[in-house]
């Protein structure tokens, strides 16, 4: 078998593997453990292979150390901000007697000086202990995150997927039909996609798809038909952004010299588009994925509220208003980890697709 065919075969097998996992997961099948494991091993293997062959080991170590430092700094900043905010976790409408307050403060070590509390928190953090929630008494922050994060990730992942699946083709088509009505229409749609607050978009979608057409349930997180609306509403904004980005990127590549050369050589439009234009114009889109993931993460809160998705987003808001310090910190750190990770992956992908960039 030639090298080229081998590569194709591997890519296909992997695509099928991942697609299978994604689909099974979407349709609420119990995804078999071996499939998850296989996915994990393959991903990890590919990543390590890439890192080792590209001599990126030191780079990775450096990045991880940096990330750790960044996380500690974020924890510190959030910790301080939380102590500056007026109002404590156990302030409530009905004032508690001083004895009761003293007991609660002793239980959570809130009676100690702030620097000691900080010391306890950071040393706990280094041991991997995020503490216990104040509001959800007796539940550890780790438990809460472990129960809600998968749902948020599921929601976010599919939203991301759908935004790429809609955004990139739209952008490419718009660019290839530059300055025609197709271009204008799709770009107007794309701008419309970012022109309304997402809660309003959600309300309109619910009105149309649940109450007018009666196709989909208005809320809850129980199966594929429940997933569709929240994913689409969450995916609209990034899809619109990706479409616009892809369009301008493709336009730029099309007008570049080497594409002109390719045209001059008499290559077919189709092969130019797929072989040269797409590959080169997707790189800027890829770099945008970092901020995109951040956007999806923070946007997910509204979607989780409106569609009653049992995710982590609502804890982000509610824990602040409850002054549930450990939970605020836990959620913030998890979000930060996700951001840092996605930035790292984007950087790796970037260097993979654009060999001119040397990470090490």
């Amino acid at each position, binding site marked *: 078998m030639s090298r080229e065919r081998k590569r194709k075969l591997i890519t296909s097998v992997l695509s099928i593997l991942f697609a299978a996992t994604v689909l099974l997961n979407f349709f609420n099948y119990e995804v078999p453990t071996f499939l998850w494991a296989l996915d994990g091993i393959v991903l990890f293997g590919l990543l390590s292979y890439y890192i080792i062959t590209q001599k990126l080991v030191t780079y990775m170590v450096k990045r991880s150390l940096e990330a750790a430092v*960044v*996380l500690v*700094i*974020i924890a510190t*900043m*959030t910790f301080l*901000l*939380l102590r*500056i*905010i*007026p109002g404590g976790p156990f302030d409530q409408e009905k004032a508690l007697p001083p004895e009761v307050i003293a007991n609660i403060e002793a239980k959570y070590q809130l009676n100690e000086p702030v620097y000691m509390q900080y010391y306890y928190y950071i040393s706990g953090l280094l041991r991997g202990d995020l503490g216990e929630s104040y509001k959800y008494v007796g539940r550890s922050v780790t438990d809460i995150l472990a129960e809600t994060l998968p749902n948020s990730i599921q929601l976010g992942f599919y939203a991301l997927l759908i935004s790429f699946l809609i955004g990139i083709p739209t952008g490419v088509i718009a660019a290839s039909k530059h300055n025609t009505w197709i271009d204008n229409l799709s*770009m107007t749609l794309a*701008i*419309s996609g*970012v*022109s*309304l*607050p*997402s*809660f*309003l978009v959600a*309300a*309109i979608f619910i*009105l149309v798809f649940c*109450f007018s057409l009666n196709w989909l349930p208005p809320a809850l997180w129980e199966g594929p038909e429940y997933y569709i609306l929240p994913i689409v509403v969450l995916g609209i904004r990034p899809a619109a952004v990706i479409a616009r980005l892809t369009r*301008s990127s493709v*336009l*730029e590549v099309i*007008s570049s010299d080497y594409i002109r050369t390719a045209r001059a050589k008499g290559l077919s439009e189709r092969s130019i588009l797929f072989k040269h234009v797409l590959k080169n114009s997707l790189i800027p889109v890829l770099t945008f994925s970092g901020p995109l993931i*951040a956007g999806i*993460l*923070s946007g997910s*809160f*509204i979607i989780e509220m409106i569609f009653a998705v049992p995710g982590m987003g609502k804890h*982000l*808001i509610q824990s*602040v*208003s409850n002054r549930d310090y450990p939970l*605020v910190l836990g*959620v*913030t750190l998890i*979000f*930060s980890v996700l*951001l*840092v990770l996605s*930035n790292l992956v984007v950087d790796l992908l970037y260097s993979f697709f654009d060999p001119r960039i040397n990470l090490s």
Partner: protein
Amino acid sequence: MSNITQQQIRTPKSLWSESYDRLKKNKASVVSFWFIVVICLVALFAETLAPYPYYEQYIDDILASPNSKYLLGTDSLGRDMLSRLIYGARMSMAVGIFTAIISLFIGATYGAISGWFGGKIDAVLMRFVDILYSIPTLVLLILVKVIFDSLNLFEDPELKALTGILLALSVVGWVNLARVVRGQVLQVKEMTYVEAAKAMGASHIWILIKHVFPNILGPVIVLLTFQIPANILFESFLSFIGLGLQPPFSSWGVLANEGWRSLRSFPHLIVSPGIVLFLVMLSFNLFGDGLRDAFDPKMKK
């Protein structure tokens, strides 16, 4: 030497007028621009335009549908929707524009210092920006908003209502601008005419103001045009989580948030704010697109 003079011929002015010509040809942008101007005028002359005060409650006309007395109906407190929409323009535009200006001020200064001095200063400043990038914006926004609101910096009720939002949105918004400005400054710094000015002994500040800023103004203005609608939308998001503009003031975000739940019961509460918000967002984005294309010679047809 001839190289330098050539560069100097491309002075900001000619670049600007060239861009202006390009912008004029983009009809959508021109229409959008005039629409934005009209909205700004509405915001400025809200008192004369609004048929009723935005806070006055007409208890006997609660939730009236649009009629000849109240053109867009009344809300659940009996306040005239049209008047609230008109006054809402003032608050929303204030949030959009002032936040953009504040974040521009912080971001441009920060980015310029970082890009211009480079080296260690740049490394440290940019590392801090990286950290800010890794904090979920939402947490930062909420914490900062609550803290600023509890400070009571101003006496004037309108200002008091706005400060928390403005400052919180700016704290989150300047980071992007700082990055863009830094990138632009780095590019411009290498230009020969800047090198020449340096060689001629001009001071840093002088070079920055005289040579660097005019050259990076284009991209920054484009970014601002996109930042303004983003801020207006973000304000509605703050309203959604109960941290928006303080009552009884009205903004489009407040109206959208009060209305979206009533889409099936009292649609008049959301239809007009929704349409206005949509059109304004659309105009800013179309205008921004036009500006970007105009400033970016690569997009020349």
